[in-house]
């Protein structure tokens, strides 16, 4: 009497649903989708502005200063007679450029610092953690002003400041995520399977933190949009040749009492874009950052 | 039957999202009895326990009846459930690592039930905590009540859970696989403790497990569950020696294959 081959005993059928990774459900929720829609609109406007704007954004028309909304200038003109709608559209480009490049730099900084702060030998790890905390205490706006005073104000400075300043915030969050992943059983199993640290990072640890990273990036891009507007407003960001919502605010604020509407548009653009990225981040977090 | 004391569950059905998870389950635990619910994962044994305490999600569709001392608990107002839950009926969960609040001292967690149900004062609570800690066999009880859960071992944490369940002087203890997360030595000690409490306090227990070797130390009679139905009921010794249902036989055979057979390798 031989024992039945229990190894082949049962093949319980698996549910016939499409096989998918956990935690990637497309359940953004109403607010998440609102955020996604806002971001998409801004993106489309920026893309269209590359091909077409009602007027060349920087073309000043001395005969049409402070034109009223409606007519040939849908949102009116500013003090130098530039078309506000065209400026707004071109400003979206600048905002997104800083959001994307600043976000990418922040993500890179965050992943690098976070990984070094979590996965290296004890001394290096601790030193990095201290470094992260010190950098965190340094305000991003101040960092930008410092960079601008040395290098002169430019979008590059804004992107650099956003990348470093917000990158450190991401690093602190990812450090914890990397620590958790490093202590997991599946990483131990990977080590037992002969995988080296670099391949474990690529195959297990980066995918493990990717959900949190995406959420952080979305929030960082919201902050980047606000930072670009703020720094350009203060004169540390976009030069006069670049259309920027922050610059528009600065240019128009002296006329706030006379032409209140002109300040409304760039202000609204900044707010809605920032809100869009924030809501998208919230939605992504709720959708599956954590189970 | 309406005057009967103890727990009487009859014809209990539970459906969640249109799926019938429990299908007409009958279980009764009279005063002083030790009853087991045994079955594999997904058989509905833990679900039954949760239903008794009204701890199921609100969209669960329940049918049948759950009576405690003749009072219907199914659909009872929260006021009635709150008196019974953690008061007259205590519960011990599987994993002591997650069942305790990591940020509160052990003593406060032990006496929570007593303070809620019997209005015990602050000074009285501490004395009670120490007494309960001693009763469940925590080492140096006067010191243990001032510690946090992470400072205790798994077995000690499970003793804390049991002490907490006892603090409101319940008459029935629901135990949801309370020894599964423990090693065999500690498992054996916890089973010993529960048996002793049953004797000294006249406590009845409803004990959920998948392991017949555990069941025979924790209960005198048991119901065997499979896919939400009771497929067999009887004294535990009979389930071990001559199980009738295929489910009980499979559980018995599995337990035979993995439990101690007298030290012959």
């Amino acid at each position, binding site marked *: 009497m031989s024992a039945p081959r229990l190894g082949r005993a049962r093949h319980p059928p*698996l549910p016939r649903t499409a096989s998918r990774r956990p935690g990637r459900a497309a359940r953004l929720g109403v607010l998440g989708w609102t955020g996604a829609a806002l971001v998409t609109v801004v993106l489309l406007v920026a893309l269209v502005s590359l091909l077409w704007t009602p007027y060349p954004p920087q073309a000043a028309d001395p005969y049409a200063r402070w034109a009223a909304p409606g007519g040939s200038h849908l949102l009116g003109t500013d003090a130098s007679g530039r078309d506000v709608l065209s400026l707004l559209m071109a400003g979206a480009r600048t905002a997104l450029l800083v959001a994307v490049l600043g976000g990418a730099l922040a993500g890179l900084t965050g992943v690098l610092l976070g990984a070094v702060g979590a996965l290296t030998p004890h001394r290096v790890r601790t030193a990095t953690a201290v470094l992260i905390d010190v950098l965190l205490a340094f305000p991003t706006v101040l960092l930008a002003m410092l960079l601008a005073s040395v290098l002169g104000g430019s979008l590059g400075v804004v992107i650099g400041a956003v990348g470093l300043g917000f990158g450190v915030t991401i690093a602190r969050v990812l450090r914890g995520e990397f620590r958790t992943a490093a202590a997991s059983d599946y990483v131990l*199993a990977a080590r037992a399977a002969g995988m080296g640290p670099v391949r474990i990072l690529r195959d297990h640890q980066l995918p493990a933190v990717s959900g949190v990273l995406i959420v952080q990036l979305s929030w960082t891009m919201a902050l980047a949009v606000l930072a670009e507007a703020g720094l350009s407003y203060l004169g540390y960001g976009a030069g006069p040749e670049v259309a920027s919502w922050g610059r528009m605010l600065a240019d128009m604020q002296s006329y706030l009492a006379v032409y209140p509407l002109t300040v409304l548009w760039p202000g609204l653009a900044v707010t809605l874009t920032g809100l869009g990225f924030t809501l998208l981040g919230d939605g992504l977090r709720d959708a599956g950052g954590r189970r | 039957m309406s005057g009967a004391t103890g727990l009487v569950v009859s014809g209990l059905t539970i459906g969640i999202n249109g799926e019938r998870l429990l299908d007409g389950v009958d279980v009764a635990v009279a005063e002083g009895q030790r009853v087991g619910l045994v079955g594999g994962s997904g058989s509905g044994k833990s679900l039954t326990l949760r239903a008794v305490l009204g701890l199921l999600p609100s969209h669960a569709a329940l049918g049948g009846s759950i009576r405690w001392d003749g009072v219907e608990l199914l659909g009872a107002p929260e006021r009635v459930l709150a008196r019974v839950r953690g008061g007259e009926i205590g519960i011990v969960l599987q994993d002591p690592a997650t069942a305790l609040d990591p940020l509160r001292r052990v003593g406060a967690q032990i006496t929570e039930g007593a303070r809620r149900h019997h209005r015990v004062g602050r000074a009285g609570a501490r004395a009670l905590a120490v007494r309960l800690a001693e009763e469940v066999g925590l080492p140096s009880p006067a010191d243990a009540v001032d510690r946090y859960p992470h400072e205790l*071992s798994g077995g000690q944490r499970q003793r804390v859970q049991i002490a907490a369940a006892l603090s409101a002087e319940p008459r029935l203890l629901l135990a949801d696989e309370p020894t599964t997360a423990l090693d065999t030595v500690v498992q054996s000690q916890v089973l010993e403790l529960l048996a002793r409490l049953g004797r000294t306090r006249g406590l009845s227990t409803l004990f959920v497990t998948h392991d017949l*070797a555990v069941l025979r130390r924790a209960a005198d009679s048991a119901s065997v569950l499979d896919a939400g139905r009771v497929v067999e009921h009887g004294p535990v010794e009979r389930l071990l020696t001559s199980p009738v249902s295929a489910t009980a036989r499979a559980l018995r055979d599995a337990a035979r294959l993995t439990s101690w057979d007298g030290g012959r390798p």
Partner: protein
Amino acid sequence: MTEELLTATELSRVHHGRGGRQRVALHPLSVALRRGESTAVVGGSGSGKSSLVRLLLGLDTPSTGTVTTGDGLPVTDRRWLRRTGVVLQDPATSLDPRMRVGRIVAEPLRGFRIRGDHDAAARSMLDRLGLPGDAADRYPHEFSGGQRQRIAIARALVHEPEVLVADEPLSALDVTVRARILTLLRELVAERGLTLLLVSHDLGIVQRVSERVLVLDDGRLVEDGTAQQVLSSPRSAAARRLVDAAPRLG
């Protein structure tokens, strides 16, 4: 005379906590494992059994002492790791939730840079362990606990190791599943001539698969003998406690 597989000399492990606090996971001990002799490391939780096994696998660095393989390699040499396969306690955490099962099972083939069709090797191993045909294309959360442990065993064996190290491979499973996986392990050990190094607190399991038993208590090796001797007439208090506590039916 059986061949030495691994020799540990004066091996110890101390963990350094915050504020200079030290916790001894393992007091110095010497032990030799022999090829073909299935050995169990037993003890309660916190006795140091998992620490010992990690040191023996070269996955942790000892505070003192050395471990060398039978042919004189240090245990940290990847050639030793290549000869071992590892199964951990809880398949819910030992399988990366974001990786497809086929890729999980083939991981040792990638890790040890073994040539050949990794995907085909993983699929045939999954088939041998009784998993459905399309298992390789799915994610771990789509499987039951028992099936997941089969996946973990498939990963441990796909590179055809000589030594199977199993750290509490059954304690996270239901009794019925436990019995099936235990039978499967015994089959595999016999079929492939594996040396099984089992970590367990459950002597009911140990008596069925191990020929030799090492008893750990509070980080100390308190008993080392044949399973026959340790289980039927334990000498140490720790071994006696384990024998008394072993789950029994009668």
